[in-house]
């Protein structure tokens, strides 16, 4: 999902204050191992061939060919340093997918030796063209992280050469670890529950209160504010009438992420979509001053109790990075404490619905009267050139999925398909059908 410039800036602002700046992240002394360079080997081969043929063929003229090579090979260079000092300072250590990291590399203690710096990146990181190598001992190298996760993006290769390029030393220094958060998917609509917690929030409740949403007029009673008197209605009815407003309440939202299976292509699989979608939804609800929690069901089941604010968004993203795909027996949704799943919370689950244990967990939640919305993030398509037996298997599997989705729908679970190509929305779910807290 491409990110707009505005979203990028927002993400950067969210990170502000959390990134260590200025001080070098890695400052190390590296022992150097000098070896004969390829260039010197070739010069040696040239000299040997010319001199040997001069002797064998009795051709003194061939000796002349060897002399420039011998002059370079015999050049006395200043002493070669045994160690150098390398400073690595990354511009950011927490970024979103697709953002660039600039690493300032500074090599000192190499004397007059020529230095060359180059990035050697691992899977999930790509060099920025023109900024992946430098011909000096101090440079800013840039790379882009394309895959969310907490990983070392690669190494910096530091090559040192003596004056005539006869001896060289190559050293590899690991780049600092970068926490790359999933890019939050755009998400504009938010579900508001019918029954909301009795605290001040941003969602218009069905009960009357001190909000801004006009709900009607009623007869004035002693104690009502004078400013809420509706003079037009009072004149028409001949008695004092006051305006009434809807209360504004917050809600608890628990994001349930299915990390039991990680299938599909790297970077666009269901787990990637689930994480991006969950972070996007968390950001939307937290912006609406709701309390958002997360439960990640995978190899290590993680949970965070619902809370408010920007800090909670970063806690959620850190939890996402700490999760591992898989399943561990014994981790059951029913075993989670009350803080993780507060009664009456809206549960937004992200799942490819491939694991029956996770589907059972959804049923369990719905049976306990949680409002459950499932975002189906399975994106892989059937192979078109499948053989007859495979087509049959695919058909049976499709029918099984239809039956599964139907059974969840019958329980009152809302299912939304999402492939990550568009903004996440919940059609027809702006207000849940959960039992009303009823207007007074």
């Amino acid at each position, binding site marked *: 999902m491409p990110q707009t410039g505005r979203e990028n800036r927002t993400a950067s602002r969210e990170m502000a204050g959390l990134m260590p700046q200025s001080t070098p992240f890695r400052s190390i002394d590296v022992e150097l191992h000098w070896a004969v360079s390829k260039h010197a080997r070739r010069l040696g081969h040239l000299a040997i061939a010319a001199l040997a043929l001069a002797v064998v063929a009795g051709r003194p003229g061939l000796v002349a060919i060897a002399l*420039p090579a011998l002059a370079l090979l015999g050049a006395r260079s200043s002493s070669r340093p045994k160690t150098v000092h390398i400073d690595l300072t990354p511009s950011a250590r927490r970024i979103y997918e697709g953002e660039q990291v600039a690493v300032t590399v500074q090599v000192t203690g190499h004397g007059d030796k020529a230095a060359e710096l180059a990035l050697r990146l691992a899977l999930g990181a790509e060099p920025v063209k023109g900024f992946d190598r430098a011909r000096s001992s101090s440079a800013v190298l840039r790379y882009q992280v394309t895959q969310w996760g907490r990983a070392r993006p690669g190494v910096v290769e530091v090559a040192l050469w003596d004056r005539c390029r006869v001896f060289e030393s190559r050293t590899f220094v690991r780049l600092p670890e970068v926490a790359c958060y999933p890019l939050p998917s755009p998400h504009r609509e938010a579900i508001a529950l019918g029954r909301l917690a009795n605290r001040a929030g941003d969602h218009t409740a069905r009960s009357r209160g001190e909000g801004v949403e006009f709900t009607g007029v009623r007869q004035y009673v002693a104690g009502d504010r004078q400013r809420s008197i509706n003079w037009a209605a009072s004149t028409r009815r001949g008695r004092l009438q006051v305006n009434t407003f809807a209360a504004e309440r917050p809600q608890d939202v628990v994001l349930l992420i299915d990390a039991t299976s990680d299938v599909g292509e790297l970077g666009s699989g269901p787990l990637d979509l689930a994480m991006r979608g969950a972070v996007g939804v968390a950001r939307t609800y937290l912006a609406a001053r709701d309390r958002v929690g997360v439960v990640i069901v995978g190899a290590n089941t993680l949970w965070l109790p619902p809370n408010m604010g920007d800090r909670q968004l970063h806690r959620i993203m850190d939890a996402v990075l700490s999760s591992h795909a898989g399943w561990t027996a014994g981790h059951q949704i029913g075993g989670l404490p009350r803080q993780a799943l507060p009664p009456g919370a809206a549960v937004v689950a992200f799942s490819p619905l491939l694991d029956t244990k996770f589907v059972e967990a959804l049923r369990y939640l719905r049976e306990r009267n949680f409002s459950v919305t499932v975002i189906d993030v399975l994106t892989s398509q059937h192979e078109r050139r499948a053989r007859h037996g495979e087509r049959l298997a695919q058909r049976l599997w499709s029918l099984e999925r239809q039956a599964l989705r139907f059974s969840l729908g019958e329980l009152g679970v809302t299912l939304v398909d999402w492939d990550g190509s568009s903004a996440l929305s919940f059609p027809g779910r702006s207000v849940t059908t959960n039992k009303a807290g009823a207007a007074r």
Partner: protein
Amino acid sequence: MKQVLAITLLGAACTFWSSQPLRGTGFLGPLFVVLASACVAGGALRVARKEVDREDRLFLPGLLLRLGYAADDVLNAVGWESGSVVCIIVLEALHPSRPWHSGVLGVALMCYLLAVHRGESTIAVGFLRGQVRFLGLGLASLALASALATIPSAGTGGLSAGLEAVAALAALAAVALALPL
């Protein structure tokens, strides 16, 4: 791409220069021309391949892809430039004595090797600044040696044979000094 072109042109020029005249060299002349050309092409291809972004290798490649990977490995493992330099000098040795011709070839071969070094390490031309003194010394001695080689031999007497032996010993000593290890 400019560097690859420079390497190819310099390599081809050295091969052409050392092979002239091809007549009178028997089957060895054409054979070494082919070998030198192949090595020059292989070296240029290796440098060109280095400039292209490499994709990660598949864990289970198909037959064609596996052949491609093997070709890539061969391209990187073989010392193409060393091979081409040896073949070119052999081609030069196949001809009767012509010291000035060998001197020009020596200069061209140095240019070829420096171009290869620049191409594979993507360094700026400024790297030559540090070694100008030694390059100058080498070229001056090359010119001197070529000039001395044009002086006719003293004959077939004892002194001449002794000088030849001294020259051979000096050559062997130079070889020993030239060995990088």
